[in-house]
């Protein structure tokens, strides 16, 4: 009985290693190719949109019409760039 148990454990270990090597590596590789471009795109667009919306709201609060929306558009673009750089760094770490 003891021998059976050991045998099962080694077989399980071999199977697990094989599974981790094949399946996980394969799915990670494929995943990063298909999704990464779209992931970067939405990061940029979302930050620009949020920045512009904040500028629009602040403009209507302080009655400073086109100025804050302009400033926050560029701040939003900068935030988008930061987002993209961070996402790209994370993607490189994953690979």
């Amino acid at each position, binding site marked *: 009985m003891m021998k059976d148990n050991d045998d099962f454990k080694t077989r399980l270990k071999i199977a697990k290693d094989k599974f981790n090597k094949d399946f996980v590596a394969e799915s990670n590789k494929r995943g990063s190719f298909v999704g990464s471009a779209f992931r970067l795109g*939405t*990061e940029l667009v979302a930050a620009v949109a949020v920045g512009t919306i904040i500028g629009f709201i602040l403009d209507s609060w302080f009655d400073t019409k086109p100025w804050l929306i302009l400033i926050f558009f560029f701040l*939003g673009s900068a935030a988008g760039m930061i987002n993209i750089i961070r996402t790209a760094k994370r993607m490189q770490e994953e690979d």
Partner: protein
Amino acid sequence: MATNPMHQFQVHRVGPEIKFGGIDLSFTNASLFMFISAVIICLFLFLGTKERKIIPNKMQLISELLYNFIAKMISDTAGVKAKPYFSFIFSLFVFVLICNMVGMLPYSFTVTSHIIVTLIMALFIFVAVTIIGFIKHGFKYLSIFVPSGVPALLLPLITVIEIISYLSRPVSLSVRLFANMMAGHTMLKVFGGFVVSLGILGGWLPLSFSVALTGLEILVAFLQAYVFAILTCIYLNDALNLHH
């Protein structure tokens, strides 16, 4: 036969109209398919964990695989401190995945192709993560808006940019899932329409595209659920381990 590719996204009422204090609470096809997804998940996990053998049958194997997959993802991205949130991230991933997959069936409705659904999920995550951050670190949590090593002159500018970047998280999280699902399903329907309108002579080319796109859509359905869950883990990591 409806050939409008956007027709599939229409929400309509199923059953009687329910009004509650001026708010329309009727049961719609969106609620129906969310309910179906939830039932599928519960049934599957119930059957998968019923027997608990050492050598599992197929259903138990898939359930355990799913559990290991999420557990590994959480420990890789957010560390041991994120263990208490396992059940939330597991439910989130499985719900998005099954909603996406149910949407792949003909005549069904894709719940995640509506921005209101994904935005509510993303906002919930955003608010929850922010609250967790404040509970764990108090006002020190605000230091994620102030990166280290920035000259004092630039600090106000960088802080505003960081706040915008932080606020853009729920938007990018929800738009990504919604746009992927909606674009894919619209494309499938458009190619399906080409098959019908070109008839038996010319319809073979769009049909082959349709078949390929279906495969791609199943991959996207899985991938987007995965990305949604992993980004939740990453945000959670930021809240749990400051400056990591």
